[in-house]
């Protein structure tokens, strides 16, 4: 990972809602993998000091420019407002690539990508890589309404089966991604699920995936300050195996009345940093109900994965809660 100064190559919009910035950042573009993120300085001065994390929507390695990364966002607060005003040739201060991205299947596999709102952003990059390696890619793209769907036309182009759902039925089928998930799994002979979006959606997708005995990789969105593992703010409760020597020691100390109850199992719950140990986790390992805390709308842009409404449902969309101060 490194600190880089990238030059804006282009600023465009996807639909009326989402902004896209393409940034020339050869060192990051060469290395970054789907699901990893970049941490972007959003302004000068010290009014808003923290960087904003963005998973990468697409990487363009060929062409006249050495290597570019593309991020997409909607305006959620001061940071994204600043980014929306950037124009070609302006400089962006980046740290990246950060985090652990999606793990690609070893053999040829049928992959189902499930994205909600802006959370779909890293799945486009993932789809490109999966297709390049010969995997089958199917996609369920969901949002509250038409304008919150991220690039459905492109989804239809790159997926073998593309399901587009909106909660208000303004585009595609009416409903939530989970309403069509089981049917899609059966129809596509899905072998692995990749998903990114609001936490309740990730939880629901994980549950259905696990019921079908499928591996589910989730990209979570937690508020983060540093992005490289030192501040301990972006943690998520995770079930992990206890180290074996620990288990032995605890067994010997079996008579200790002070030992917490959970020590009796081989698993324990720890807070894992989503910036370095994630943002991609095994969905089955996440303790989901521990993460349902609502996040203040003006803080939502401090989470990666796009800037989906961290922890909120799809109803909590930006148009209902305009960020204060803008």
């Amino acid at each position: 990972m490194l600190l880089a100064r990238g030059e804006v190559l282009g600023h465009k919009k996807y639909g009326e809602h989402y902004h896209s910035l393409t940034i020339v950042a050869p060192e990051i573009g060469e290395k970054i993998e789907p699901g990893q993120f970049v941490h972007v300085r959003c302004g000068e001065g010290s009014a808003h000091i923290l960087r904003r994390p963005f998973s990468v929507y697409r990487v363009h390695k060929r062409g006249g420019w050495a290597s570019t990364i593309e991020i997409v966002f909607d305006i959620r607060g001061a940071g994204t407002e600043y980014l929306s005003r950037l124009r070609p040739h302006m400089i962006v201060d980046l740290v990246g690539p950060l985090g652990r991205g999606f793990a690609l299947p070893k053999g040829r596999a049928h992959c189902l990508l499930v994205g909600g709102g802006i959370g779909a952003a890293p799945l486009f990059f993932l789809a490109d890589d999966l297709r390049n390696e010969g995997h089958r890619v199917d996609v369920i793209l969901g949002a509250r309404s038409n304008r919150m769907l991220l690039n459905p036309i492109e989804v239809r182009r790159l997926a073998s089966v593309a399901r587009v759902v909106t909660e208000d039925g303004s585009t595609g089928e009416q409903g939530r991604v989970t309403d069509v998930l089981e049917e899609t799994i059966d129809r596509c002979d899905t072998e692995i699920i990749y998903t990114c979006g609001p936490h309740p959606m990730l939880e629901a997708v994980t549950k259905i995936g696990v019921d079908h005995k499928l591996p589910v990789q989730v990209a979570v969105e937690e508020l983060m300050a540093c992005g490289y593992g030192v501040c301990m703010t972006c943690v998520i409760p995770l079930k992990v195996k206890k180290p074996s020597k620990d288990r032995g020691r605890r067994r010997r100390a079996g008579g200790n009345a002070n030992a917490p109850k959970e020590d009796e199992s081989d698993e324990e719950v720890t807070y894992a940093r989503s910036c370095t140990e994630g943002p991609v986790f095994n969905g089955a390992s996440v303790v989901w109900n521990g993460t349902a805390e609502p996040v203040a709308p003006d803080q939502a842009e401090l989470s990666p994965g796009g800037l989906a409404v961290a922890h909120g449902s799809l109803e909590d969309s930006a148009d209902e809660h305009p960020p204060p101060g803008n």
Partner: protein
Amino acid sequence: MADLSIKLAGHELRTPVLVASGTFGAGREGSLFVPLNQLGGIIVKSTTLTPWKGKPTPRMCETPSGMLNAIGIQNKGIDHFISTDLPWLLKKDAAVFASIAGNTVDEYVKIADKLRTGGRGITGVEINISCPNLEDRNNMFSHSTESTAAVVAAVRKALPKATLFPKLSPNVTSITEIAGAAIEAGADGLSLINTLFGMAIDVEHRRPKLAGVTGGLSGPAIRPVAVRAVWEIHNEWPHIPIIGQGGISNAEDALEFILAGASAIAVGTANFVNPRASLDVTKGISEYMDSNHVASVTELVGAVKTEG
């Protein structure tokens, strides 16, 4: 080039620029950006007697010119620090300041005992007393002269040879009084300041923005408070070395602290924003010294002119 080396409570440090506890972990992640032997020292994330899991999320929110956090000192415990982090840091040629925290005086003593036998190679020990004291209705140790003195005296006794820097809280009526209690109890120096107590509310959901409800405010917003604390305490005890910290992001910020009386400074929240902030600060101090013909950084300590 200017001589950046300093003497801090008898220890030779390469530069006056440290990284603050809780903002650089135990050095591993930060070392991807900063060679640890180019720092004056690293004040490691606080360690406790047993591993602490920390608080639920959200643990952080951004505030004007700063951030509010309630992490709950998530750490793997003193044994892990001694067996794993410390040897690694020493191998990287870092000047290591341990940071210890607890909920009872006895916990501080037990950690100190472990450091006495396992802490060889440590430069100093910062005592994080911004923790609830379970034996005093959960009041923070740092909020009373009695609790501050009790912890510092107990750690002093357990670690007679170590260099101790209690880290004081600004959330008190008179930080000078607390400083006096800490010095009398055996502190070699002082770390100034810890975060300011704060709270932020999400009006949309009518809930606190932090799961921990209240939290510690850090970043540029608190810098004037910290500079004032350093200046006050340096005036009262000019011979007590101070590690100044609180919202330092660049060399000018750092120089404010040094001129106010800090012998060394620590970069904190700025590490989150710019992982190389500590090196940028170091470079900036050096440039300032060159252009102002200052031969040693020691000349600047407490050199603010408040009269005339």
